[in-house]
């Protein structure tokens, strides 16, 4: 009965890191003076007070020529044009949908920046506005691309490609957005029959691969299934 039981206090720090001996960058904390001179430009995470540039978040410095930014370990998603995001429809409005994308403000998906069902290209009419809820409802998950960023930081999305649009049958996983790097491809089909959408906003969508990819392997299964249901 006398096994070793280690009971730790909640506040005791446990460092799980394997590589803790590699060299560290310099860290800055809020209120810390970065530089006393005025020949630098202030970027995100910094502010000017008493003729010196100070950090406003805790993190590492990124310097591009004269622009100094402090990048925190984690923060809300800050969108850039071309990012792939996964979001949830919050609201259906007159000519647009409000989408929650883990960003500071809700994102907007305009009716004019979605593909109409059937793929026809034309001006959006009043009937289309009335059919909006048929297309995307409150609570639906979508994948989309950032079309533009408004001056207040909110995002405008578009789904004008067949790879974007409504998501169904899968699992959503939320992680911190800073853990996801910007890559060329955010849509992955894994060999095990799983397709993954890694949204830049920290939302990851995992789903079975599209039927048309698998159709050669299990055409018979599908036919049997359809016959049973017919």
């Amino acid at each position, binding site marked *: 009965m006398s096994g070793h039981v280690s009971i730790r*206090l*909640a*506040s*005791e*720090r446990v*460092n*799980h*890191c*394997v*590589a*803790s001996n*590699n060299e*560290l*960058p310099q*860290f800055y*904390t*809020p*209120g810390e003076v970065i530089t006393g001179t005025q020949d630098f430009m202030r970027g995100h*995470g910094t*502010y000017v*007070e008493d003729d010196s540039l100070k950090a*406003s*978040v*805790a*993190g*590492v410095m990124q310097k591009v020529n004269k622009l100094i930014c402090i990048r*925190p*370990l*984690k*923060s*809300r998603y800050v969108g850039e044009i071309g990012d792939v995001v996964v979001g949830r429809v919050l609201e259906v409005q007159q000519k647009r949908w409000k989408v929650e994308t883990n960003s*500071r*403000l*809700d994102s907007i998906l305009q009716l004019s920046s979605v593909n109409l069902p059937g793929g026809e290209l034309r001006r959006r009419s009043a009937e289309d506005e009335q059919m909006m809820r048929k297309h995307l409802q409150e609570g639906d998950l979508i994948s989309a691309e950032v079309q533009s960023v408004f001056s*207040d930081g909110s995002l405008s999305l578009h789904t004008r490609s067949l790879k974007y649009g409504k998501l169904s049958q899968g699992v959503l996983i939320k992680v911190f957005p800073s*853990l996801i790097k910007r890559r060329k491809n955010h849509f992955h089909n894994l060999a095990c029959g799983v397709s993954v959408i890694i949204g830049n906003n920290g939302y990851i969508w995992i789903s079975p691969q599209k039927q048309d990819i698998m159709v050669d392997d299990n055409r018979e299964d599908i036919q049997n299934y359809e016959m049973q249901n017919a």
Partner: protein
Amino acid sequence: MPGPDLLSSQGLRLDGRRPNELRRIRCKLGVFTQPDGSAYLEQGNTKVLAAVYGPHQASKSKQLTEGVVVNCQYSMATFSTGERKNRPRGDRKSQEMSLHLRQALAAAIKTELYPRSQIDIYVEVLQADGSAYCACVNVATLALIDAGIPLRAYACACSSSMAWKGGEPEPLVDVSHVEEAAGGVCLTVASLPSTESIALLEMSHRLHMDYFDVVLSRAMQGCRDIEVILDKAVREHLVEGWTKQDVVTI
């Protein structure tokens, strides 16, 4: 002034501290995954948890065009005090504490950066052993830093009291529950120590004006000491987070 006997003949306090000594502060950032930022802090036997959500879109009725809405909720667990509480939040004292918390934190947050947004700060006192408000400000600051929300500086809070040692006034820093209950004066200061500015000042009981300066300066010194401790904790957290990122990229 016939104040209660808070100092022994050796000049030690009821719990064995020296007059200018803080209680032990231990803290940890990033204790939850669901909120954007979270922290846990122990100041002696006072234990508090904080969670920060946001900045996120504020509701239509609340949103301001000039800055972010800071929304605080202070709650004390039912088991946090000697006598069991039946309302963890919503009573007069909690509402007042929420307002005070908002005042101190809104002074530190760079509110002008996020128009039309809202930041929610939830603080839960798990064990109250004096200076619960101070611990709440300190833990909320850590949670805000963990959430990556821009701050002007650390917001730290500290309390101080007053005792007599051989007829001389001797201020006490970081008041514990026994000292609070003994009925002495209790001055609570929330400040941004690196800018030397005071965000909130509150005093219970009466204190002669002649002694106010020494008591205030002792509390401010406490704030500066706490800032050093919080800064160290934040740096340790950054080191931990940073090496983890490197491991992922290898």
